[in-house]
């Protein structure tokens, strides 16, 4: 693990079209998503609408539908789609050798 990236586990631990969470002590929880075409994205686990846990929404295409009031959030940008307005912070994420790595700096920023 390098200083810039946090190794959080195997890609296989995230269900396809699903999500897992990473709580950050003193900060906001991160939601890590895996889409139908095996891309990985990470967002702060908080809907821009009323704070719904996005990790629990239905993942479709490259969006997640918030479990509370069904806003659709683009996974790549964190922004609400369609008529809805708002944005959730994005956490850079990458997969290397089957391991999922999230950006340390963004995670810390989310924690600040």
């Amino acid at each position, binding site marked *: 693990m390098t200083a810039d990236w946090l190794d*959080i586990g195997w890609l296989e631990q995230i269900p*396809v079209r699903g999500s897992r969470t990473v*709580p950050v*002590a003193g900060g906001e929880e991160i939601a890590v998503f895996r889409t139908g*075409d095996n*891309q990985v994205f990470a967002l702060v686990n908080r809907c821009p609408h009323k704070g719904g846990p996005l990790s629990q929404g239905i993942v479709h295409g490259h969006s997640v539908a918030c479990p509370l009031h069904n806003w659709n959030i683009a996974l790549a940008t964190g922004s609400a789609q369609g008529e809805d307005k708002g944005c959730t912070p994005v956490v850079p994420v990458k997969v290397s050798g089957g391991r999922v790595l999230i950006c340390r700096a963004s995670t810390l920023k989310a924690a600040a």
Partner: protein
Amino acid sequence: MELIGEGWTGEAAEGAPDVPVRREHLVVVGNGMAGCRAVEELLARDPLRYRVTIFGAEPHVNYNRIMLSPVLAGEKTFDEIVINGHDWYRDNRIELISSDPIVAIDREARIVASRSGRTLGYDKLLIATGSDPFIIPVPGKDLPGVISFRDMSDVDAMLAAAGKGGDAVVIGGGLLGLEAAHGLSLRGMKVTVIHLMPTLMERQLDEAAGWLLKSALEARGQTILTGADTAEILGTDAVEGVRLKDGTVIPASIVVMAVGIRPSTALARAAGLAVGRGIQVDDHMVTSDANVLAVGECVEHAGLVYGLVAPLWEMCRALADGLVDKHSGYRGSVTSTKLKVSGIDVFSAGDFSGGDGAEDIVLRDASRGVYKRLVVRNDRIVGAVLYGDTGDGSWYFDLLRKQEDVSQLREMLIFGQAFASGGGQADPKAAVAALSGDAEICGCNGVSKGQVVACIDKGACSLDAVRAGCKASASCGSCTGLVETLLAVTLGDAVQAGPKTMCKCTSFGHDDVRREIVAQGMRSIPEVMQMLHWSTPDGCSSCRPALNYYLLCALPGDYKDDQQSRFVNERMHANIQKDGTYSVVPRMWGGITSPRELRAIADVVEKFEAPMVKVTGGQRLDIFGIKKEDLPAVWADLNAAGMVSGHAYGKSLRTVKTCVGSEWCRFGTQDSTGLGVQIERMTWGSWMPHKFKIAVSGCPRNCAEATIKDFGVVCVDSGYELSVGGNGGIKVRATDFLCKVATEAEAMHYCAAFVQLYREEARYLERTAPWIERVGVDYIKARIADDAEGRDALAARFLFSQSFSQEDPWAERVADDARQHAHMAEFRPEGAMA
């Protein structure tokens, strides 16, 4: 061992007087695709500058590795796949030392040593050792009969085994594994492919294309097991079979391991070169040692390693330019993939990571088995997946690589190059308008454009009316777009919107989708999406749960529920609250409880510090404020006291409310509590289009509020009055009277039949009240009260489906997948930095 041009030292050759006396010596390690190509590129630039020696571990001349698949399949011979034969080495005075791998490099002395003990000095060394097959570390991996798929000797081993017939298992459903499976199957073996991921070739294909591929391979007699994890390879002296983690045993006389490759870096690493995932090189393919170069699958360039040939060609060009001091530089490659299985066309290129404003364009043609998906971002193609019709693959790939602006082509793009570059026809309406009258529109029903237009002229002004009038688009629906365009062209603004479609992903309504699922015997969500031409790759949060339910209802016991197509509450088996915690409602049969249950609930409330416990309007207790991670533990405790999920979260049977009834109440006419409990025992666990509530009141005073429930029973002296279609809610609706029956058994039987009718015919998220308003209560009476045979059949289907659904989801989750509730990792900044 084979030596070509042995003894030739690079001294001045006859007939070439201007050759310098001392030429630099280039030693190549690896006689594979990249190594030899690099030499070819070098010779093309300056044939005289280097003296070349190539060491190869294999006993062969340079052959085309990617053609090993056709050799295995019997479509090509080894001779036909040779790239450079003996004469090439001879003519170019290249010394080939085959069957003798290099085992050590002394960079200080600039000497390499081979396995046979030969040592040779170099001026420049080129490492082109390719990749090693990855062997999963399971017991039995070293048994004779476990074969990888990398070189000609592997093919020979497979052919020897195939000659004896029998069963073969291929582990790995990627490109390599599927080509191995195809070859072995053509050679007469019975092949099973074991793939860890849920869909085949998941790195190149999306779910839809993966599903199509799986169906096509199955149709050819292969068995494809996805989501299957190998536990062990069985056998004592040789392979006898494979055991999966779920216990399944598959017999096999050979096991082909095709799970992936790793850059072959051992030699470079031992020599102290910089190695990451591969041997690290700069843009000129030079390693951390200026005299050592590397090329091919063994290298890592700009953090990337490649497993396909196209990048090698580009690398070799840059490498040769560098060797003759005309540095150009390699900039990384965009790759595309094709599966070499005859008769199955699959193409994939670029990536699908979407991002800012990424948009999917999807075309599905079920009757031709075609699926195309393009990912467009900022008016540029960034990814493409084609199945069934890959003719335009190279065109898309070209647009992708050149990052061409496709905004002008946007509408036509998915139809391919011929259509999109049709100049004057670059308007779909114009293209359709230009079709001749006898052009076929609907292939399924053989309807021509003229017939569709005639139908529209006769007054059909909606898609539905056309479907009813001339059958166009009434079957598979692949011509729906064409028919809609014809409507628009013919009628302009007078077109009437069709029935409400399920969602924006499809042009079909709920009823059409359900009918087709049953009529065509569809078995999975990707199958439905393909057959019915979904316009998105994997649907949306509206259609996925609906399809999941429709399939579940159509295939009880058979259909594997798709968790990721369920709303959070049904996936977590609890109700999400506004602060992200959950409420938990255990079932209390008919509203009756006991000290043991109450104690268990009280204990849970204390143990997990639930902030509130409340009696619900559905006659049971609701525990609030439980954290997602704690849910499995809460359930385990409730299960231990004999309680199961109350499905307070589900589109499913909720509660059966009862009143005390004849057992205690001075007005009670029948045992309403007892009947309520029996009905709840019969119906719990059933998934429905929407939530479903039942109540049984002991007399017409109706204390259980049975007349605002989906199914209500009001007991009277002479029997049981059944009524249906009530609810509270925003728009209160009292039930419609269905009929009166004499016995408890009949009340149960009618209830089962009614529930099943609702399950089979209502649209997803349509509660009984709006459903009955839509179809009319007379229809329900005709089906349930008047048609004894139909009623029996409905009830039987309900009970059959219930035989699969009365497992407590909480107990199941606690037993096998509590992980879904756990965090993946935790991060404590202070600790992590210490």
